[in-house]
């Protein structure tokens, strides 16, 4: 076998994925966190990438949580997808890099995910921005009436 | 000197030293014993000594019903430990890799799950034997430091080997190092302690059987 042709090409059936059965315990954890959110208002999050999840677990989780009402895309140095699942208060947040690879993925149990909220510092910037825009517009307006 | 250096030493030089001491020691002791042979027995044998010898090697290796009644726990623990140690040593996949690497021969392995159960049983048996040694007044009286030392040296490879598969408090490297060093300790002390019985048992059984057979007695 000393040439490339010497290496046989063998076709295989797609090997079935083995499930670690991680979906169920995860769902129970979500249940506990949701309960806590209602009782104390404290939000929680589960890092999906910290768990050894296989395709099976993933599909199962998606299937049980379902699709909810909100679908939002945040564009901050690459897209982030924020979707509420059919279980209210349970959000599925996926951060992508600009080359579309997944950077991080969380299940957030909260009334509204942090990333959707505007940071006060950004709001201040927004205000400054608006003011400067207003200023330039009113200057232009003034200029027009003067003529 | 970090754990990695020690591991490398244990996998290389350490193992070489241990294996040399083991093989030199065992051969010296066996040859010495063998060469101190008895005077030829000139009497006409009643039956073949050779055959009788082999028979005894087997009969004495099978559990004795009399002993079973008198000291069942001791007997069962003894069997479990000895068979268990043998199985784990020769039928655990990574061990077979070791033998394959050294001698170029390999054979099928037992699944890890079975090996684990056997390891636990063997460790349990060792503790039962220790308990007996300490609690039985006669045996305690007869026990010397060497008996306890040899007990510990036999326990450590089993224990570290088990932890290698199951520990979360120690890293694999640390446990593998501990395992290798414990095995090397066992190899080094082997020829100079009662551990030699792993070889001599069968010779002495054969000898006892052969002597008796020549006299027409079956043991």
């Amino acid at each position, binding site marked *: 076998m000393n040439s490339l042709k010497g290496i046989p090409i063998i076709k295989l059936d797609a090997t079935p994925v083995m499930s670690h059965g991680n979906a169920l315990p995860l769902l129970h954890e979500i249940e506990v966190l949701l309960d806590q959110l209602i009782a104390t208002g404290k939000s929680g999050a589960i890092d999906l990438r910290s768990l050894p999840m296989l395709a099976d677990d993933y599909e199962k989780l998606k299937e049980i949580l379902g699709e909810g009402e909100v679908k939002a895309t945040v564009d901050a140095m690459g897209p982030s997808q924020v979707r509420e699942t059919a279980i209210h208060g349970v959000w599925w947040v996926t951060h992508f890099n600009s080359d579309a690879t997944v950077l991080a993925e969380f299940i957030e149990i909260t009334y509204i995910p942090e990333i959707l909220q505007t940071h006060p510092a950004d709001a201040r910037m927004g205000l400054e921005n608006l003011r400067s825009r207003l200023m330039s517009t009113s200057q232009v307006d003034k200029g027009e009436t003067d003529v | 000197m970090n754990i*990695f250096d020690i591991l490398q030493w244990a996998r290389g030089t350490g193992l070489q030293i241990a294996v*040399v001491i083991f093989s030199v020691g065992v051969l010296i002791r066996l040859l010495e014993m063998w060469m101190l042979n008895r005077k030829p027995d000139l009497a006409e044998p009643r039956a073949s000594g050779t055959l009788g010898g082999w028979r005894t090697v087997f009969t004495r290796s099978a559990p004795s019903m009399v002993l079973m009644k008198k000291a069942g726990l001791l007997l069962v623990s003894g069997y479990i430990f000895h068979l268990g140690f043998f199985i784990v040593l020769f039928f655990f996949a990574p061990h077979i890799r070791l033998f394959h690497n050294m001698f170029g021969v390999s054979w099928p392995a037992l699944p890890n799950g079975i090996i684990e159960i056997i390891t636990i049983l063997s460790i349990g048996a060792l503790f039962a034997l220790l308990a007996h040694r300490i609690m039985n007044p006669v045996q305690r009286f007869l026990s010397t430091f060497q008996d306890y030392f040899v007990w510990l040296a036999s326990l450590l490879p089993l224990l570290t080997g088990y932890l290698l598969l199951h520990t979360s408090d120690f890293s694999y490297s640390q446990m593998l190092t501990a395992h290798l060093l414990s095995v090397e300790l066992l190899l080094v002390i082997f020829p100079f302690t009662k551990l030699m019985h792993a070889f001599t048992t069968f010779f002495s059984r054969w000898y006892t059987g052969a002597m008796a057979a020549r006299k027409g007695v079956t043991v």
Partner: protein
Amino acid sequence: MSDDKTLAETLAQRGISRRSFLKFCASIASLMAMPPAMAVEMAEKLAAARRQSVVYLSFQECTGCLESLTRSHSPKLEDLIFDAISLDYQETLVACAGHFAEHILKEAIEKNDGKFILMVDGSIPLKDGGIYSTIAGRTNLDILEWVAPHAAAVIAVGSCAAFGGIPKANPNPTGAVAVSDIIKDKPIINVPGCPPIPVVITGVIAHYLTMGTIPDLDELGRPKVFFGDSIHDRCYRRPFYDQGKFAKSFDDEGARNGWCLFELGCKGPTTHNACATTKWNGGVSFPIESGHGCLGCSEPDFWDAGSFYTALSAPTKDVANWAAIGVAAGAAIGVAAGIANRSTKTETKRTRKPLTVDDLKGKPKS
């Protein structure tokens, strides 16, 4: 870009919002196995951080580490960390050459004395006065001993800087040593790997910027968050290891079924790194996922740790021949001892005086 502005302020001018910080920190937290809630706090701190000066020195190395770092898979988000640092000196990347470059290094050290992070890749040769690697006529040892005392902390990038690496491999012709063999009084963070995972370096810097401290290190000076688990702990083939299902060659049924590569020499069990979780090439795969056992490149002296293709349970040195020598020597000594014993036996027999009645009566022998 002015250095007294916070990172958030500088980036805001470029239209980068706090959401990007949050997102960046969420991915770093996920990577560093921190609780997801930490991300918010980290983002706040990172936003308030000032630019961190970094000096990068290259010694006896192959530039693979720098390649790994600058070609990291997530250019856009990682820009954020490159915005957070000011890479004041890096020989390969610096625009100028010769005396100008020398001058920049000097200036960088003076300007941020005691505050900059020193990154080093490559080992330092000590043999023959360190002449085997010099820059502008100065030995690596000389440069390191000059720069390091002015740094706040040192990051040893790659196995060469961290442990000596391939230059130190047997017989170590240049007398190469690691950074930690020379610098004793500065915090040193080892980020080994051949090359190291780029995002680990990013993580360490992000940790320093947000927490103001260096991450927890293991006994080999590596950040525990990335090097705490072994490859084996996190390997997706682990269930096969536990079931005792091993590939016996790279092209057998077992290999095709994705069974464990232990018997083919995988060093995953003794190797601590984050490959199995962070993966390589934009998260595509890591060596074991591509069908090859782990080489153990992030451990000290991995190059001398036996063949890459013999199982971890097999010895790294030739034991069989030593065993054979042992058997031969044992046989020779045994036979010699046996003969000696026999002659003692004959001799004892010959000189043995039988016990007489007189002996028993205690009478002296005549």
